């Protein structure tokens, strides 16, 4: 196992996008907006975004927008801040941000900010620092960050800092690599990284690397390819990425690729099972881990993969287009 099998991954993504006749695929349809973002960003990082029908995706994305301004995971589902960010990111990939009614989306996100600066995911009120990141990232892309109370948002995020230097989902929540990415990303975008103890956090993050070279999300857990993104991007943002062993991590990610198809049940054609990346070696693949694996390799500057922005989780050329046009 020595290389990234790009062609197979591209084929895997394109096939997975079309698959609608098995339970596992169909039961994910409520989060299709996320899946589309993962799949398309991966294709873009591999230089193959032109293999898909732009108009088909753009019109589908827009048909997921609600009156409230938020986007849902799929047509007919309820809106949520999670899918709102993914929708905006997908449109950014296609350079179609100009078709968004910026005021409408902004209004939706602003309405989700609470008194204490935190953000809810939707009208039902669940609070999580993930939603803080989403709000800040999304509004930043739309050039409307000033419409929320940034100071309070930052204050709330900092209140979720733990003694080990990490961040949780709410004040007092356990430090977790995913939450850390969200908090650090949000602080990066709002220019508040000086408020992070970088040595302390960097220490916690680099301890996520286990013997196999993979990264886990918190102590005592198994490594998982998706943490190649969350831990790595956080380390890059706080300028401590030299504290992990990059070569070992690259090897781990490449080992999570599925190169030879295993003949599973008769439901699958063996061809479509080629490609894709799983959470750890020898497990089943999915779009989620394929994206994070490739994104991780991008951060590690693997040849043949476009560079990705660690805070916005979009290809650097897309981010440049948004901010430096």
């Amino acid at each position, binding site marked *: 196992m020595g290389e990234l099998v790009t062609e197979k991954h591209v084929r895997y993504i394109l096939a997975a996008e079309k698959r609608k006749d098995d*339970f596992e695929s169909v039961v994910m349809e409520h989060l299709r907006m996320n899946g589309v973002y993962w799949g398309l960003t991966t294709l873009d990082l591999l230089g193959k975004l032109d293999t898909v029908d732009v108009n088909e995706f753009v019109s589908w994305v827009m048909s997921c927008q609600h009156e409230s301004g938020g986007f849902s995971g799929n047509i007919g*589902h309820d809106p949520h801040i999670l899918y709102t960010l993914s929708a905006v990111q997908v449109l950014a990939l296609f350079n179609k941000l100009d078709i968004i009614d910026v005021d409408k989306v902004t209004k939706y996100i602003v309405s989700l900010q609470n008194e204490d600066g935190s953000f809810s995911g939707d009208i039902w009120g*669940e609070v999580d620092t993930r939603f803080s990141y989403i709000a800040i990232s999304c509004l930043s892309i739309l050039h409307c960050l000033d419409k929320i109370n940034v100071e309070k948002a930052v204050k709330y995020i900092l209140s979720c800092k733990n003694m080990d230097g990490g961040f949780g989902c709410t004040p007092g929540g356990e430090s977790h690599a995913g939450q850390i990415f969200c908090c650090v990303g949000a602080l990066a975008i709002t220019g508040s990284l000086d408020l992070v103890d970088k040595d302390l956090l*960097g*220490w916690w993050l680099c301890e996520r*690397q286990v013997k196999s070279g993979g990264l886990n999300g918190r102590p*005592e857990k198994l490594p998982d390819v998706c943490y190649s993104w969350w831990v790595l991007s956080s380390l890059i943002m706080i300028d401590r990425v030299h504290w992990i062993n990059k070569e070992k991590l690259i090897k781990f990610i490449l080992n999570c690729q599925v190169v030879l198809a295993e003949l599973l049940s008769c439901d699958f054609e063996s061809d479509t099972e080629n490609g894709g990346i799983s959470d750890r070696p020898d497990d089943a693949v999915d779009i989620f881990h394929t994206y994070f694996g490739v994104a991780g390799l991008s951060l590690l500057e693997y040849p043949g993969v476009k560079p990705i922005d660690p805070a916005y989780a979009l290809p650097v050329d897309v981010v440049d287009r948004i901010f430096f046009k």
Partner: protein
Amino acid sequence: MSKESCSEEKGLNLLHQLEDIFENDPLIDEMGYIHPSQFSLLNDESGIPGDSPEEVLHPSAERTASSVESLLDASNQENLYFWNRDHKLGISTQILLQLYRSAKQSFMSAFKQYKASNIQSDKVVDSSYAFPSCDHLESILMRHSRSLLLLSCDFITAWNCRKYVLSKKNQPSVFMDELHLSALVLSYAPKSEQAWSHRRWVIKSISANCSNFNEILEKESELVEKIAEVLILCRNYILLNWKEIKDELPCLESPMLVLHELKRARNWAAQHIADNSCFHYRRRLLLKILEDSSCRRCVSSGYNFDMEQLWKDELDWNRTLVNRFVGREALWLHRRFLSSCWINHFLTESSNTSNASKETASKYHEFGEFLENELCLAKSCSTILDNDFEDLQSQAKHSACYILWLRTQVPKPLENELLEKLRGVDLLNLLNKSCPERSSLFNDIMK
């Protein structure tokens, strides 16, 4: 009849069967998906439909009258696709796709109609006219959303519609039903983010109006512990509830509750020493007591406990675990927290009594002793034997890192004390030997 409408009808049939099972057995508290081959085992011709798996595998000579009856009564189809006994439900994997499609379609259409009728009833002045049809639509909606959630646990829209319906109600019993449903979903999908989120919402909603809130919380702790895999969501979920208690029920002596919980959770923690969430939970409880005790210092309180002793006990208990369970990261991280707090709260607090200088001297002495003990422990764990026993290597790595941690936690005025004690220990060498991968970290930290 076209192939499509045939399969649609079959799907609806399956949905009705599923929903009938719930009508007949509203107490179902556990479910799972069963592969068809396992199904035939459960409903083997040599066994009797409805037998428990154990009975099928080890058939006994006795058959009760009721199980013979059930053999005669049970429809053939039900045996092929659904299995229901002892309040447990099994669904054949063979029909999942079809069932999902029809559940989703029925749900979406019911939701649409319900929303439309709600808009109508808001407009109609004489609302009693709209009510009966609204109630009926509501019960259909609740039924279909439940079926859908048994197939797609994170289907946000289905959970939302239930919140929508519930937010118009006041009876606690309906909310209890929601806890029951989410527990059922968690039985087949313990990591379902939406199921946990829904529970949080339900508990928040009833906390204001419920007299037996404590009881409910007790049950929540039990449920969480029952779900074998300890998840970050579980832990955060309980913590969220503690916060809610504090805000909603200020009459509660929360420090006492927290102490009680600390004690109770100790046994459980000892059985889950590789579970970081467990120890994070303890840290939260300890921090809470610390916060409360510092603001109650000047206030006379009905309870008396020695904060310092509590901390010492926790450190001692941790030491026992560290020595017994070799190489466990979670234990060492817990120790980092405990020492950090010990140094910063108990040893270096400024005192404004008249015996200030005497106190300082004794604190200094205590600090020296504390350091001595900690370094002793760490050193005893850091001998790297020349074998490949992974746990011992881990122990060496963790203990060396622990020494480094102490070095960063010690405040400037007391640094010399530490360096004095570390004389003769080439810390950097020790660190690099135990964990060469992290040499970059060690070099930077020790600069």
